[in-house]
């Protein structure tokens, strides 16, 4: 339930100290981290490769028109080492270069080539090193054997030095079988590049999976480490602190708040790195392909940044508002389910439903407002993406005409722009997750930084065999401030003795159970165990020597044996022995699974008496020197009462016992009786002495114990 109240999301902006603390938890998992980085890099590279390969297919196999240059160009100082010329094929006295290979030519060189009249831009298709027999029949008819003079158009196919040069129009006029025959080499390249494409796809598949896997595993390890630290820290806090904290809230800290930090790993961090590197990668590839066109793309980006900044803020506000209202609505529902009896008692069903409608309507409006932000932002970004594409097409057309960019590169640009825009929308949404992770982190770390444990600074140690001598020396205790529950209480219990404490409700009896095992610290006076003040002894030693038997029995989910042993390495026979001592064995054995019967939700239900006996067995199994027994007040049937009394006898045997007594038998068997009234020690002595006194005990006895004693 607490979750519904606690889901009040406070969004924080990016907070370095919190991120650093989260990242500190990653440090032990270096190998996984390396795995993440590697797979991230591979998947990014792989996904950038894909459009490049499809560009190569278009440029390298499908669109293979060449232009020609005079061979002398190679000897010209000005053109030495020009990109693309090295891929030229020499046929006769000419160089044939694919248009796509020349797209990297600097503008000045291109201008110089054109000015010299050295560049013949008429598109033609070149097949180097072909067999004459392979030529399609339709070409053989007018096969020429020399190239026309430079500057004159190539009219038909030319067969020279084992190579074929064909005007592009003739190529496109070929029938499919002829084209296939002629372009066998292109088919081979196509298939080879297709294979590369497949390899890249598989790489992306494997790397993306690897990356998800390794980040999730890292996240899981970090969560476990964090949760265990939180658990140890929380369990170590004082009862005083823990009793002020709603259990539900602490559970939320350890479970769902930690989970939001996991989101930071699996969702945000990786996305930021991956999307960021894809975006940067795209820009780099664009610049490598064509700096001029890439500049055009860059110039079209500012509106995108403005829009995403604005929308991020709007989305955050809208999200925050929606979350606040959502948690209010949920809390309203949860609360009115819990308090439904109040609603009914006052006949307010209709009225609260009307109140609910108001909040519910507010929630709808907030969630509509949030939706409008996204409904505006997403289409807007898509539109900007179209703007960039349009700009690229327009300027690209000019560049292509000047031979500055190949068609394949232009197509790749169009695709890469899409790749660039895809994460833009994503990143904005991730930002919201980041913010709630920050908020979760803050709550988790503030709990981790809380130190409310009782001081444990032993200056003495407890001898191995605890005798069990107890002394309360002018003890004053209050749960808060000066609201004294115990006032100036002094008494001693000799080893092996039984002391019963009685008094009316609210007299402070049950508090004694908390003080001796040092679940709370007293404000004044001393509590001494075998002559040493318990604050001077190791906390664990005190609690091992003194075991409280609490009024409300708490059984954990697990088997009966587990509940008795609580992690002690006990043989089954030892567990049974403990159970026999308190007469629990009989009923446990009758259960279908005996000691392996599972307890907890949806499992076997035990009666109150049986639960009491199990808690006795638990204490016996831990064999303390001293027990502090807080007897249950709840009424039980006669049979259970008999069982419990028998169990108690086994439990108390040979141990120093302080009993907050409600049972006549316990009181009567005590060596001494303490009577408390409103926090003070009113009377003490043996049963007979106190009866003779005819004071408070005498009356209490008659009213509260005698009747019950008679029935038991």
């Amino acid at each position, binding site marked *: 339930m607490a979750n519904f109240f606690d889901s009040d999301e406070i969004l924080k902006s990016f907070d370095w100290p919190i991120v650093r603390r989260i990242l500190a938890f990653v440090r032990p998992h270096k190998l996984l981290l390396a795995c993440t980085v590697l797979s991230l890099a591979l998947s990014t590279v792989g996904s950038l490769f894909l459009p490049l390969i499809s560009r190569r297919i278009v440029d390298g196999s499908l669109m293979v028109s060449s232009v020609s240059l005079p061979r002398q160009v190679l000897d010209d100082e000005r053109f030495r080492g020009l990109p693309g010329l090295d891929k030229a094929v020499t046929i006769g006295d000419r160089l044939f270069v694919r248009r796509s290979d020349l797209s990297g030519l600097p503008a000045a060189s291109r201008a110089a080539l054109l000015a010299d009249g050295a560049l013949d831009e008429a598109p033609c298709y070149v097949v180097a090193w072909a067999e004459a027999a392979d030529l399609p029949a339709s070409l053989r008819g007018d096969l020429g054997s020399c190239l026309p003079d430079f500057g004159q158009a190539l009219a038909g196919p030319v067969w020279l030095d084992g190579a074929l040069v064909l005007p592009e129009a003739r190529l496109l006029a070929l029938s499919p079988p002829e084209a296939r025959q002629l372009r066998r080499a292109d088919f081979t390249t196509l298939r080879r590049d297709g294979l590369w494409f497949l390899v890249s796809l598989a790489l992306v598949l494997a790397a993306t999976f690897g990356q998800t896997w390794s980040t999730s595993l890292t996240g899981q390890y970090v969560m476990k480490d964090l949760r265990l630290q939180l658990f140890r820290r929380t369990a170590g806090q004082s009862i005083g602190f823990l009793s002020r904290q709603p259990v539900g809230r602490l559970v939320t800290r350890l479970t769902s708040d930690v989970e939001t930090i996991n989101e930071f790993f699996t969702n945000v961090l990786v996305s930021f790195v991956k999307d960021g590197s894809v975006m940067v990668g795209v820009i780099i590839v664009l610049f490598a392909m064509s700096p001029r066109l890439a500049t055009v793309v860059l110039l079209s980006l500012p509106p995108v940044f403005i829009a995403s900044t604005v929308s991020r803020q709007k989305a955050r506000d809208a999200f925050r508002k929606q979350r606040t209202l959502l948690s209010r609505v949920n809390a309203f529902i949860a609360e009115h389910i819990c308090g439904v009896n*109040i609603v009914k008692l006052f006949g307010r069903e*209709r009225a609260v439903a009307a109140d609910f409608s108001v909040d519910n309507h507010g929630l709808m409006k907030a969630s509509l407002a949030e939706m409008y932000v996204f409904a505006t932002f997403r289409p807007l970004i898509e539109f900007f993406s179209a703007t960039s594409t349009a700009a690229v*097409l327009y300027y690209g057309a000019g560049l292509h005409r000047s031979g500055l960019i190949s068609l394949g590169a232009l197509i790749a640009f169009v695709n890469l722009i899409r790749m660039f825009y895809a994460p833009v929308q994503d990143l904005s949404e991730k930002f919201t997750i980041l913010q709630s992770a920050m908020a979760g982190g803050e709550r988790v770390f503030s709990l981790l930084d809380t130190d409310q444990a009782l001081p444990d600074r032993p200056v003495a140690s407890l001898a191995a065999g605890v005798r069990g001598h107890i002394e309360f020396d002018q003890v004053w205790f209050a749960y808060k401030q000066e609201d004294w529950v115990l006032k100036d209480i002094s008494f001693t219990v000799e080893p092996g003795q039984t002391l019963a404490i009685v008094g009316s409700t609210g007299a402070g009896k049950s508090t004694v159970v908390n003080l001796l095992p040092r679940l709370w610290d007293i404000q004044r006076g001393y509590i001494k165990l075998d002559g040493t003040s318990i604050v001077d002894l190791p906390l664990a030693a005190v609690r091992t020597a003194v075991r409280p038997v609490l009024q409300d029995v708490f059984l954990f989910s697990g088997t009966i044996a587990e509940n008795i042993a609580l992690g002690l390495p006990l043989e089954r026979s030892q567990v049974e022995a403990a159970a026999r001592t308190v007469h629990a064995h009989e009923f446990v054995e009758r259960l279908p699974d005996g000691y392996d019967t599972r307890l907890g939700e949806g499992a076997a239900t035990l009666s109150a008496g049986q639960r009491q006996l199990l808690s006795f067995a638990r204490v016996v199994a831990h064999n303390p020197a001293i027990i502090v027994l807080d007897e249950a007040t709840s009424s039980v049937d006669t049979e259970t009462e008999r069982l419990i009394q028998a169990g108690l006898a086994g439990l108390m045997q040979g141990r120093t016992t302080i009993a907050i007594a409600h049972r006549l038998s316990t009181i009567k068997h005590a060596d001494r009786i303490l009577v408390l009234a409103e926090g003070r020690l009113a009377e003490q002595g043996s049963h007979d002495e106190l009866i003779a006194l005819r004071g408070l005990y005498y009356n209490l006895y008659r009213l509260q114990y005698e009747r019950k004693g008679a029935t038991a």
Partner: protein
Amino acid sequence: MDEDSTILTEACSGLALHKADGQVYHAHYMLKEFRTLGPYIRQHWYRYLLGILCLLLVDSAQLLIPQYIQRSIDAVAAGQARSAVLAIVVWLLGTAALVAAGRFLWRFFIHGASRRIERDLRDKLFGRLMTLPMKFFQDNSVGDLMARATNDMQNIRMASGMAFVAFFDGVFMSLAILAVMFARHPATALWVVIPLPLITLLIIFFGRFLGRRFKVVQERYADMSTVVQESLQGIRVVKSFVKEDYFSRRFGLANDRYRDASMAVVRLYGLFFPLITFLAGLTTLLLLLVGGGAVLENRMSPGNLAAMLAYLEMLVWPMVGAGFTVNMIQRGAVSLKRINEILHLAPEAELAAAVVGESGDQGDQGGASLMATSRAAAAVPTAVPTGAAGHLEIRDLSFTYPGTATPALSSVSLRLPAGQTLGLLGRIGSGKSTLLKMLPRIVEPPRASLLIGGRDIGSYCLADLRQAIGFVPQESFLFSDSIRHNVCFACPDLSAARFSEVLRISALERDIDLFADGWETMVGERGLTLSGGQKQRVAIARALARNPQILVFDDALSAVDAGTEELILAGILADRAGKTNIIVSNRVSTLQRADLIAVLDDGGLIQFGPPAELIRQDGFYAETAALQELAHHVAEGRD
């Protein structure tokens, strides 16, 4: 193709949050559950219609964009002038603007409708919940009911919004794109579309398997929080047995189990998106190979190939969407079933009426307008009598809770004249609370055993009966709202004079300095934490505010010190002159102010009479009085 990523992120967050049930429902079953949504969808028909129109407009315009890209590229390839390209590009931009506007609009309409439906359904659910009998709340955990009000609602929103969009978008886009591709190059298109249905199947398949694994994750997560919860609830045991390490180990193990289950999901889920990308890439590869071959063989233009590449990419998301539609609708149907289970339950008033079996008309307590309540056979709307006519009578009342052997009450008979105060005394479990709960019929008393003004309380209409009673329960439950709201809970239009009067009587007035915002101070989970005594006093003010015919006081001053208790009681009794009160208390000092005292023990009435008489009798009342007197004297003497 529109909405691709939204469908995806929403559907996936759905997967992650609600951890789909993994159950498979038949189509007709799904449809049956969805019929409940029918009236809601009809109510918003114009939104859906306009939304779908916009969606189809967007989809059609979208199909044009690759064409413009193709024509530009072809123009570039043909070496045409930039102005020719410019003309195409302007068209491209215009279409893109249209698409952007359409995308906003369909979201506006369809999401708008689905969120309104969610609101209406939630209103209806809450309204119905409030009217259900108490037994329902004992039988169902808060957690389960909350899950219905939150996760299930979200599933239904998705089914009525996203699934709707994904369905129309998917069907229209798939058909249109397939048509375009086949028209362009049938042979190539045939090859290329082969892997696409695999994507849809993959998603449906994944949805089912993931559902199962998510369920395990959810269970393990619950186990983990159970360990925390138990360890903290049983922290006294943990600490006093020095078992911090043992429980920390247990928690570690629970963590490991959760991790293993989560990683089992990751192994599947982590493959999910990469596989979609892979299959989509495979279709591109097929297109490059088959279409590339066609280009090489002069059977297709390069521009055509580029356009088909673009179309292909658009086809992937409708296929993904189709898969998610199936999953979303399945989840939505399961959730709707869970909501309907509650909506179909009869409200308490109907049940109460059925118990009495008298006929008549009675308003539906639910208040939700859409709900056509079946005609309720209800009690005659007779107001609970006021003044001297309103005496209370218990006639031989015996009651045993179902499923228990020992009776909670046995043969209790007493008569309380109107305007008098009854004090109730008894040990824990003596039947006091059961008796009190019968008065407003939170627990239904046997017929003719509890009478007001000589009439069986079962014959009053429930609302009227409860209207006549002011109840201060043992555990003071306040709502997380202002103090004023809590005090005025039962009567929002309380006069300012009465408001300050009840604050004075309940001795809240003197605490005003402790409340930063005065009576507007928020209390509870999101505000000030009140002490037990303060809560009790607010609860008293709340009951007094409505000035009820009968005031029931269930040990409601236990957390207040004796002096304050005296003060409050004196104030209440003065305020309630002429009205009936029933006060449970263990303090004789409180009880002695009553006109009559009843002592219950083991469900039976053991003493009954005026306090002055009982104190003289040798019995439980006198003994308790003596004991309390004595304890007080002893403590006083010592101080």
